[in-house]
């Protein structure tokens, strides 16, 4: 008998008529690693909340069908018992931690279920050791990094010893290193401790191969499920679904008999072609980031040094020129100075030494507000921009603020960003991707010549990333220079022209994306790692498919000639 059984589950949130879940049927065995994939608003989070008992007991709303846990309907299980069977980890660590100190946060759940002090002390010791938190038990939560906070949230749940761990995009707010650590922990918990894991995750390349079962959601429906990643990859390619990792997309996209789930498996498959270097692959034309300090630079950074008031030197001798039509992705580890550089470009940070010339003006002599019509800035969280009751007013706000005419411009922006149907809707009620489009429309309404974006792909699914990438390319074609910070190397490989690598406040290297990403061991996308030493300059899924097809063809020719 299945450990978790979802039987004809349909659900709609209070005061809404549309179904967030539509007749879901699924069975999950104890100890399985289940990956739930789907776009923003597909019902992934709602399904996870139904499994953890939050729907309908906490959210109320209209619910038909039942979720069974070990044969018992979840909605009828006492909350205290349920929290000891199913633990739920949410997206944002900041929004789920409630106590001030690490130790108190870990014991919070145990206190709620009334465990005796002796048992709590034992479990705190166990769980803190297992998750590597022993050294920071007396630290304030506010002093921890995002990854550590998510570990504390996980520890708090694990201390209640649940047999099922439900995770709703647990790494979406984390940097790649912290995300990798959390996913490794989750894998370990599944493999070594036998905990059933049900996870919704956007970084499919990190957990696609771990899944025992993959559920694909779309508009509230469970559109496909299979135990084999290969079958899911084939289904996704056939149905034009973006929810498979780039590696699987390459192989399934050319109908290759095998679909690898990891780079290692992929390279083993390609191993047989290693002697057939593909001579027919047309190497992409190189776009170069050069000609610094030319007259045409719309943004010119000369010998820039910057220190924060606490004395931390964040930028060291930066020289950079940005020209119309540039699309540069800035990469580097946390604390490398990426965000500081972006803020120096639009005048939020004034140079300590050297200068930044933006739109022909020295940023030391003009205010951020004066530069804002020429330099658009999009922060990590679109929510930081939105406060007006309708999409239309939000776009109007920027124009009115800058003293520009709104006549026709707002309509044009809404049209361009496919927002016309939402003109009179509160932007905060829209999905993640739509919110981001509203912010972009409001920022770009003043037609800035440079657009600065701080990690805009964080938390976006493949489909939304594709939309954003295409949107940026369109802007770029019209001459807007795009400077963006990203940890997402697959996105950078797919859309950027140039890459800039920063470390400890300095630009370590810069160049076109082929030069920067295909010759790096760590800063390279999955596709590049797959074809490393087999074919140079392969970064994108399309390029990967071309090379694989060429390799397959040349192998066939070779076989025939023999």
């Amino acid at each position, binding site marked *: 008998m299945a450990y978790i059984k979802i039987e004809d589950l349909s659900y709609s949130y209070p005061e809404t008529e549309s179904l967030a879940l539509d007749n879901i049927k699924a069975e999950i065995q104890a100890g399985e690693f289940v990956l739930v994939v789907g776009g923003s608003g597909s019902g992934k989070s709602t399904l996870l909340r139904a499994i953890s008992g*939050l729907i309908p007991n*906490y959210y109320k709303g209209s619910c038909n069908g039942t979720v069974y846990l070990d044969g018992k309907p979840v909605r009828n299980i*006492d909350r*205290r018992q349920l*929290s000891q069977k199913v*633990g*739920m980890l*949410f997206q*944002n660590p*900041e*929004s789920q*931690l*409630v106590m*001030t*100190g690490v*130790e*108190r946060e870990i*014991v*919070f*759940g*145990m*206190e*709620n*279920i*009334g465990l*005796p*002090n002796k048992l*709590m*002390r034992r479990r*705190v010791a166990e769980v803190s050791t297992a998750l590597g938190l022993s050294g920071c038990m*007396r630290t*304030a939560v*506010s*002093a921890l990094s995002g990854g550590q906070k998510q570990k504390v*949230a996980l520890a*708090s*749940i694990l201390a*209640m010893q649940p047999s099922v761990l439900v995770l709703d995009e647990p790494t979406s707010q984390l940097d790649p290193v912290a995300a990798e650590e959390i996913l490794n922990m989750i894998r370990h918990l599944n493999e070594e401790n036998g905990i059933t894991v049900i996870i919704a995750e956007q970084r499919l390349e990190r957990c696609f191969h771990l899944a025992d079962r993959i559920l694909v959601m779309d508009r509230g429906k469970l559109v496909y499920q299979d135990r084999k990643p290969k079958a899911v990859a084939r289904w996704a390619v056939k149905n034009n679904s973006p929810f498979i990792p780039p590696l699987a997309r390459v192989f399934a996209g050319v109908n290759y008999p095998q679909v690898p789930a990891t780079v290692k498996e992929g390279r083993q498959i390609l191993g047989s072609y290693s002697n057939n270097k593909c001579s027919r692959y047309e190497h992409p034309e190189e776009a170069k980031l050069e000609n610094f300090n030319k007259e045409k630079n719309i943004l010119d950074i000369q010998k820039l040094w910057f220190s924060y008031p606490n004395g931390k030197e964040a930028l060291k001798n930066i020289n950079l020129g940005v020209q119309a039509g540039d699309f540069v992705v800035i990469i580097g580890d946390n604390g490398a100075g990426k965000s500081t550089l972006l803020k120096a470009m*639009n005048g*939020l940070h004034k140079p300590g030494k050297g200068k930044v010339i933006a739109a022909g003006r020295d940023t030391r002599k003009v*205010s*951020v*507000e004066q530069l*804002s*019509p020429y330099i*658009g*800035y999009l*922060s990590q969280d679109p*929510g*930081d*921009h*939105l406060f007006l009751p309708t999409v239309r007013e939000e776009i109007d*706000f*920027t124009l009115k*603020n*800058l003293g520009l005419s709104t006549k026709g411009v707002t309509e044009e922006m809404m049209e361009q960003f496919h927002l016309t149907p939402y003109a009179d809707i509160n932007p*905060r009620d829209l999905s993640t991707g739509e919110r981001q489009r509203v912010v972009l429309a*409001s*920022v770009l309404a*003043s037609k800035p010549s440079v657009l600065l974006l701080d990690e805009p792909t964080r938390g976006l699914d493949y489909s939304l990333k594709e939309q954003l990438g295409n949107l940026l390319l369109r802007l770029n074609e019209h001459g807007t220079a795009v400077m963006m910070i990203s940890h997402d190397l697959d996105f950078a490989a797919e859309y950027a022209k140039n890459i800039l690598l920063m470390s400890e406040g300095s630009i370590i290297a810069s160049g076109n994306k082929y030069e920067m990403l295909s010759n790096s061991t760590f800063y390279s996308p999955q596709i590049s790692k797959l074809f490393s030493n087999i074919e140079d300059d392969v970064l994108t899924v399309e390029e990967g498919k071309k090379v694989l097809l060429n390799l397959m063809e040349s192998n066939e020719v070779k076989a025939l000639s023999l």
Partner: protein
Amino acid sequence: MYSYQERDNLIYQLHPATMIVFVMAIFILAMVFSHPVYLLGLLLAVGIVIVASGNFGNWKTYLRFCLMMALFIILINALFSPAGTTVLLELQVIPGFYSIQVTKEALAYGMGMSIRLMIIISVFCLYTYVINPDKILGILGRFGNKSVLVISLCTRLFPLMIEDYKRIAEVQRCRGVNYQSAKWWDRIRNLLPVCSVLLLSSLERSMQQAESLYARAYGSGSRTCYNREIWRLRDYLTLIVIVIAMLAGVWTAWMGWSTYNYYPKLNEFLINETVTAFILSLAFTVPAILNWGWMKWPTLRSKI
């Protein structure tokens, strides 16, 4: 956010209840005593404990603020308190009509009050830097878990909201919202977007926190209270000495030994009062004395 930072000495290892009793005892006696020698003794005792706990640097910051306040108190009291008989200085504000007399008694009273203020601020410094706020919440949790949760949430959310405010203000400035406008009403009006976003983001966060509380069975029935603090010999020794000293202090006040009359003429300092004040001060340095032994003889650590 926390001012508290754990250090490796005995004072940090005392049970939080012991330290709370210490802080309360000093605070109460600072209120009860008016004799400057007794007050100086208390200030000295708190100072020794703060220095022994390794927080001299932090105390200096508090003292700087205290000295400014003390000068202000002394000056105001000397200039505007007409009491006292020993006139040191007479200032003719409006010659023939209004003059200010600075008396020795008013000056001394201002000094006495300044010492009291310094004790209270120093004991607050000790509380801030030496007692882990989480441990306090742990102790209070036994008496009212909802109130403790509210305190905890506020403590957590306050720095988060400050960070949110800074970030949102930057974002809105990049949209052309001007906070440096010359007109104050424009500046206030331009704060509206920031406050709106801050409010909306906080509401969204509170909804998510409520969900997290529910998922972790908060409010599902009676709670237990986690405690890993152990009562050790060091706590009993400290508590016994402090309680005796506290009672002795109250007794000296009852007997009138630790009270002092500044007006109309300053009382004389008696030897036996000074000796009693010294003994009391010595008693309140017990955490520092134990810490000294703890540092000097490592084998003593497990014994006490």
